[in-house]
C-alpha cells in the first residue's frame, strides 16, 4: 500500500461573513464605535454587559430603553495567558491575557484582552481600563485592549473618529473573517481511486461476497457497510442517468460558458453514478440514457480534475430498464 494522500484544504469566506446584528446588539456595538460601553438594566436591577436580547436567567426581553452606560474602568474576574498570539486571529501581535472583565456598574463580565508584557502583571481583581482604537467600526475590537488602571488616575481619552458621512448612524451589521486550514487524509480507498486517475484509470472497489462495484468508494459498500477490499477497474464509459442544464455563470472552472450540462454517469462495470460535466454536443441534445466517455486531461494528476468532462460516444442509447435503479 502506498502512503495515503493528504490534501491541503482551507475554509474561508472571501470578504468575510456578514451578519445583521439586530437592535440590542446593534446599540451596544454603536456605543463601542462611539467609545462608550453600555449594559442593559434587567427587571431585577442587575446590569447585563454585554447585553443580549433576552435576560439569560428569565428570558424576559431586553430593550434598548433599558441601556445604561458602565465603566469605563473595570475589574478582572478571571484571566488566562496567551504566550503565543496567533497571527491573523488575534488583534495583538504580542503576548497578552484573555480576561473576563466586569466594568464598573455592571453585574456580569465581558471577554476581552489585557495588554501587559508578562503574566506576572496579571491578577484576579486587578483594575483595568479600555484603550480605544481610532478606526472604530462598531465591533468588539474597537477596544484595542484593556490596560492596568489605578483608581484616581486620569481616564484615557477616546480618540475621535475620522469624519465619515455615516457618522451617527446605528451599527446594523458586522463582517467577521476567519480562515481555518486543514490537512485531509484521503484514506486507503480514496487514495487508490485518486492514484488511478493519475494513470487514466477509474478504480472501484467491491466487498467480499458481493458483485456490486463502487467507483470512488470511500472504503465500504454503502448498502451494507462491508469494506470494499477488492479493487476493480471500471470503464471510463457509461450512461447518463440524469442531468441538469446549468444557466448560472461562474459555478465551475471547467465550464467557463453557460449553459452547460451537469450529469450523473453510471459507469460500465460500476453500481454507482459518477458526477461530471457533459460537453461535445449542444445542451439540447443531452438526454437520459445517452452513452458518454471520459475526456481525460493531457497531463494527468491524482485529482478529480483529471477528467475534464464527458462527451457522447455516438453509440445507441441505453434502455431505461438498464439504469432505472440508479436514479
Amino acid at each position, binding site marked *: 500500500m502506498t502512503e495515503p494522500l493528504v490534501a491541503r484544504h482551507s475554509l474561508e469566506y472571501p470578504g468575510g461573513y456578514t451578519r445583521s446584528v439586530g437592535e440590542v446588539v446593534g446599540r451596544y456595538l454603536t456605543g463601542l464605535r462611539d467609545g462608550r460601553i453600555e449594559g442593559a438594566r434587567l427587571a431585577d436591577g442587575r446590569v447585563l454587559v454585554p447585553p443580549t436580547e433576552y435576560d439569560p436567567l428569565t428570558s424576559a426581553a431586553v430593550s434598548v430603553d433599558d441601556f445604561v452606560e458602565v465603566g469605563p474602568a473595570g475589574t478582572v474576574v478571571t484571566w488566562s495567558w496567551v504566550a503565543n498570539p496567533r497571527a491573523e486571529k488575534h488583534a495583538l501581535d504580542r503576548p497578552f491575557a484573555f480576561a473576563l472583565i466586569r466594568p464598573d456598574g455592571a453585574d456580569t463580565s465581558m471577554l476581552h484582552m489585557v495588554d501587559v508584557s508578562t503574566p506576572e502583571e496579571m491578577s484576579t481583581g486587578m483594575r483595568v481600563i479600555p484603550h480605544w482604537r481610532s478606526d472604530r467600526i462598531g465591533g468588539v475590537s474597537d477596544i484595542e485592549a484593556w490596560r492596568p488602571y489605578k483608581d484616581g488616575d486620569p481616564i484615557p481619552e477616546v480618540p475621535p473618529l475620522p469624519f465619515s458621512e455615516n457618522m451617527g448612524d446605528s451599527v446594523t451589521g458586522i463582517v467577521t473573517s476567519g480562515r*481555518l486550514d486543514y490537512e485531509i487524509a484521503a484514506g486507503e480507498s480514496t487514495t487508490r481511486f485518486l492514484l488511478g486517475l493519475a494513470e487514466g484509470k477509474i478504480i472501484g472497489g467491491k466487498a467480499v461476497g458481493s458483485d456490486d462495484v463502487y467507483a470512488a468508494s470511500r472504503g465500504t459498500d454503502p448498502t451494507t457497510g462491508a469494506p470494499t477490499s477488492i479493487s476493480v477497474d471500471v470503464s471510463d464509459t457509461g450512461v447518463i442517468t440524469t442531468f441538469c442544464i446549468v444557466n448560472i455563470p461562474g459555478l465551475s472552472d471547467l465550464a467557463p460558458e453557460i449553459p452547460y450540462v451537469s450529469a450523473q454517469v453510471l459507469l460500465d462495470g460500476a453500481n454507482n453514478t459518477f458526477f461530471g460535466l457533459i460537453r461535445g454536443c449542444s445542451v439540447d441534445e443531452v438526454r437520459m440514457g445517452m452513452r458518454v466517455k471520459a475526456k481525460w486531461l493531457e497531463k494527468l494528476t491524482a485529482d478529480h480534475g483529471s477528467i475534464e468532462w464527458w462527451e457522447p460516444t455516438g453509440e445507441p442509447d441505453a434502455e431505461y430498464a438498464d439504469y432505472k435503479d440508479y436514479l
Partner: protein
Amino acid sequence: MRDVAVVSFSYSTVAKEQMRNEVEMLAPVITEAIDASGIARSDIGFTCSGSFDYLQGGPFSFVMGLDAVGAWPPIRESHVEMDGAWALYEAWIALQTGEVDSALVYGFGKASQGNVHEIMSLQLDPYYVAPLWPSMVDLAALQARAYLDASGRSERDLAGVVAQAMRSARDTPQAIRSGEPSIEDLLASPYVASPLRDADIFPTTDGVAVIVLAAGDLARSVNKRPAWIRGLDHRIEPHSLGARDLTRSDSTALAAKHAGVASGPIDVAEVHAQFSHEVLILSEALGVDPSIVNPSGGPLAANGIMSAGLVRIGEVARRIMDGTANRGVAHATSGPALQQNLVCVLEGE
C-alpha cells in the same frame, strides 16, 4: 418510562489517523459493536450519529459517515451536530416512543486534521466573543482560574487529577497518554494557557465510538447483563461566559438531579472532563468522590472529539455489563467551558 439498555459498546482512538478516512475508521468499529450486540444489522430500528462538520471544514460529513452503516434498503436515521452522547439521547427518545426496539448510536471525528482548539472557536457567540478568537483552551483556562480562586484549590490539585488519570489510563487500550508522572514533574512543565499545562489539556485524538441500545425483553434476550439507562437528562447554561458562574457547573447538578444520580450508590463515574479542573468541578456537581471518577483515564487520556462523551456512557456500561460495577453515572459536555451537560445513570439488574 420504557426500560432501555446499552447492550454493546466499541470504540477506537488514535492520536493522528493518516491511513484511513472517517468511513474507514468507523466501519470496523460499527461492525464490531453490531456483532457483539447479538442484533442483526438489518433488524436495527433506528440509527443516530454525532459529528461536527468544521472538523473537516466541509458540509454534511455525517452523510459520508453513513457509508459505514449500510443504509440500504433505506433506514430510519438522524444526526446531531454534537457529541455522540446527544445522539444517544435522541435514540433513547426514539426508543421511548415504542416505535423501535433497538438503535445504533455512534460519534466520530478526526480532530488532527486542523487546529481543533481553534476550530472550536466557531461555536462561540459570533458578535461578542468569536471575533476575538479565544481558543477552547483559553476559555477553559479562564474557568480553571476562576475555579481555583473560588475553591482555594491549587495547581497542585490539578496535577493530582492528571496523575490519577494517567495511572488509571495504563489499563485502557484506547489511551493516547498514560503513565506515572510525578506531581513535581507535572508542576515543572510550562504553561500552555496559564494556569493550564499540556498535561491538564486533553490530547488531540481522532476517534470513533459505537453503542447499541435495546429495549426491554430484546435487551434481556441478547445480553446476560444489559446496562439499563435509569436516568438521562441534559441541561444548558447561558452562552454569555460572563453571565455564568464558572466556578461550578449548575447545569450538571440539575441534570444529575433529574437523572436521579443521588437515589442510589454510585460505583463508577466517567466524566467528559477535557481539562483537569473540570474533573473537580464535575465531581462536585455530580456529588461523587473524585477517586472513583474516570477509571478509564477519561478524556485526559483519550478524547475523540464528538465521540468522547459517548465513550463515557460506554465505559460505565461496559463495567456494568461485565459485572465489575452495579450502578454508575456518565457525563458528557458540549459548548465552551462546560456550557451544556448531559448526565446518564446506568444500572445492572
